[in-house]
């Protein structure tokens, strides 16, 4: 047996032994997901146990180094672990922007002290992070952002406003883009970290078309941020921000249902067999879905061996989010009038309709589809022009 197959057998045995049965069923919705953080209330004993066991093993962030709370697995081992988790239907023990976005940026740009401290907290699910990038006047054109940090010697005083800050009202800390030099557009931004309980920080939830309010307007009124809470160099935060966006895009591209290749068609057979045109749409969707999973696998294998183009995650984000929107359009069409129900228990509180509406944000958040196409065309295809 190869080393990798030995690892597979060990991982599987560990999962079978340690993953509670309740954590082997799909999460029902956002409320059912473990986000960690100071104020997180576990929905079940099993959820808590599963997190604790994974933390002890380093499996909340299996590919991070052990010193920073991970298990130090190789890319191949991580892939095998995920495959085995998928086979057993294990839920992710911990979801967080810390894992998907901040951690990788810290690994690349952070000091040793920052890695041990912040990455450790993330890995243990102790601190929940939010992302302060977008502003009312700066969305796609993010670099035009204005939130300003005035240099006061050993600290900055931050004033300004962010918007669309996901889970700002639930997060403990924020990673935030702050302008520290008004004369230089790209090299005048710093990447700061601060506690959401710092005096002067306030949030106001915004309601989405799905009826939920997972994101906020975030205001900064003379917020004091010590100088050691910067990642990377002063005025070089744009490099960190862009690197992090690469990981964010990679993460969003992988979203969508079970993230697997299982077709939703079989469960809908009764309807599809009566609707040949809809069945055909579903079939073409399945072709695209199988394609996307193979594409993702190939991308990850190339990414982790340094063979992928650095801008490739933009392509995956575009393809993956458009596919996820298509999936939800089909779910709504196949669901018919039942899928229109918004509140009933029968419809699980309108989950189909709400999910469908939520997925429309996939091709906006983390950079819009149009912006992704711009990046692919310029950076990968090297098309001319501004």
């Amino acid at each position: 047996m190869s080393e990798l197959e030995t690892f597979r057998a060990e991982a599987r045995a560990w999962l079978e032994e340690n993953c509670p049965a309740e954590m082997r069923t799909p999460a029902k919705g956002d409320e059912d997901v473990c986000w960690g953080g100071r104020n997180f209330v576990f929905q079940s004993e099993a959820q808590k146990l599963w997190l604790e066991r994974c933390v002890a093993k380093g499996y909340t962030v299996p590919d991070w180094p052990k010193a920073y709370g991970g298990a130090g697995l190789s890319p191949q081992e991580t892939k095998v672990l995920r495959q085995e988790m998928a086979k057993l239907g294990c839920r992710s023990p911990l979801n967080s922007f810390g894992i998907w976005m901040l951690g990788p940026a810290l690994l690349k740009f952070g000091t040793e002290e920052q890695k041990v401290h912040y990455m450790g907290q993330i890995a243990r699910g102790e601190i929940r992070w939010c992302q302060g990038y977008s502003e009312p006047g700066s969305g796609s054109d993010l670099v035009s952002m204005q939130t300003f940090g005035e240099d006061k010697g050993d600290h900055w005083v931050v004033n300004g406003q962010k918007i669309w800050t996901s889970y700002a009202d639930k997060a403990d800390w924020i990673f935030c883009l702050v302008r520290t030099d008004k004369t230089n557009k790209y090299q005048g931004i710093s990447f700061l970290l601060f506690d959401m309980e710092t005096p002067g920080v306030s949030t106001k939830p915004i309601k989405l078309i799905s009826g939920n309010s997972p994101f906020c307007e975030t205001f900064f009124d003379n917020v004091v941020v010590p100088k050691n809470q910067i990642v990377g160099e002063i005025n070089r935060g744009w490099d960190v921000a862009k690197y992090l966006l690469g990981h964010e895009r990679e993460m969003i591209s992988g979203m969508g249902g079970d993230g697997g290749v299982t077709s939703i068609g079989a469960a809908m057979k009764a309807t599809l067999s009566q609707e040949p045109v809809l069945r055909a749409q579903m079939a073409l969707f399945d072709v695209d879905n199988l394609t996307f999973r193979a594409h993702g696998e190939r991308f990850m294998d190339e990414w982790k061996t340094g063979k992928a183009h650095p801008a490739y995650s933009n392509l995956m984000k575009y393809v993956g989010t458009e596919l996820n929107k298509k999936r939800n359009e089909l779910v709504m069409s196949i669901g018919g009038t039942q899928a229109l129900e918004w509140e009933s228990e029968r419809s699980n509180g309108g989950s189909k309709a709400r999910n469908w509406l939520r997925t429309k944000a996939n091709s906006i958040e983390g950079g819009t589809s149009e912006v992704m196409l711009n990046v692919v065309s310029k950076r990968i295809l090297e098309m001319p022009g501004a």
Partner: protein
Amino acid sequence: MAMTLTDDQNMLRDTARDFMASEAPVTHFRKFRDMGCKDGFSHGLWKQFAEIGFTGILIPEADGGMGMGQIEAGIVLEEIGRNLSPSPFLTTSVAAVEALKLADKAMRDRWFPGILAGETVIGIAIEEGVKHRPEKIACVAERSGNGFKLTGQKQFVVQGASSDMLIVAARTAGAAGETDGLTLFAVDKDAAGLSMEAARLVDSAVSAHVKLDGVQVNADAVIGEVDGGWAVLSKMLDAGRVGAAAEMVGVGTGAMDMTFEYLKTRKQFDRVIGEFQALQHRAAHLYGEMEGARSIVLKAQSLMDEGHAKAELYVAAAKAKAGLACNLSVREGVQMHGGIGMTDEYDIGLYMKRDRSLNEFFGDAYYHADRVATMNGY
């Protein structure tokens, strides 16, 4: 398996890329097309394919071949597609070889040496209608003497009239629509009662309409089991499908590269047209589709090579996706070239024609999407 090519596979790709670009580029294709070649390909090139080892890429080492898999065959096919190199590689070295691998030793000894030497060409005689419906095969093989007597008709037998042997699927039992009761036969081109009418196709390949008028074959002409031909047929078809998909990745990529190059050089409105966002977005979308096609084809090839239970599903998805993506590539290619894309002198139209043929080969995108739905349980 990792979804990246190994060092050996990368070397093979470099070899195939250099070989096709120097020995069989689009100008080679044009030359044979314009001389009205009755075969639609060069026997000299087929010999060169043999010398470099391509013709026996899937033939087991024990039988004198390279003993490689679908990934390697696909690497060669992609370069064939990119250069529109005309050859019997897909039918003979991929589809026919996969069928013959399941035949007895006498049959393998009879045909493999000629394929290895680049002397033998084999035609695949499956289709009976204008669309791919292998389970609907009605051509009959009745027991007769020491063997069988074949009666029926076949079409879209690519390079049929240039073939030394045809692999014919016929019914020894059951009725059209059933997968049981089919048998595959190796039928000699000179067999009495066999007649062919060659027909040139839109992509300048030559295919044949075949008539089998009581063609007598011996029992030893059977490939695999009598009545159990579906297993051999499926293997042969899946190899042909994933091979055609790989060739379409080459055709689509070739057309795409040519188009992107054009966008970077053609000027209108005082700018290179590649500066227009309306074209940039379509170019980026097309690139994504082609990358997806490349990925699912590689996945299908590797599952076939592993003998994985899901190989059939992925082959169907790969043939469908490669067909859709390649088709998008040639359509965008012609459109983005403007008027010049409509001319015979310019190559982009040749890619459009080749795509059309490959899409039909062993089932189009809709046929295979339908199979994906069926295999997925709806």
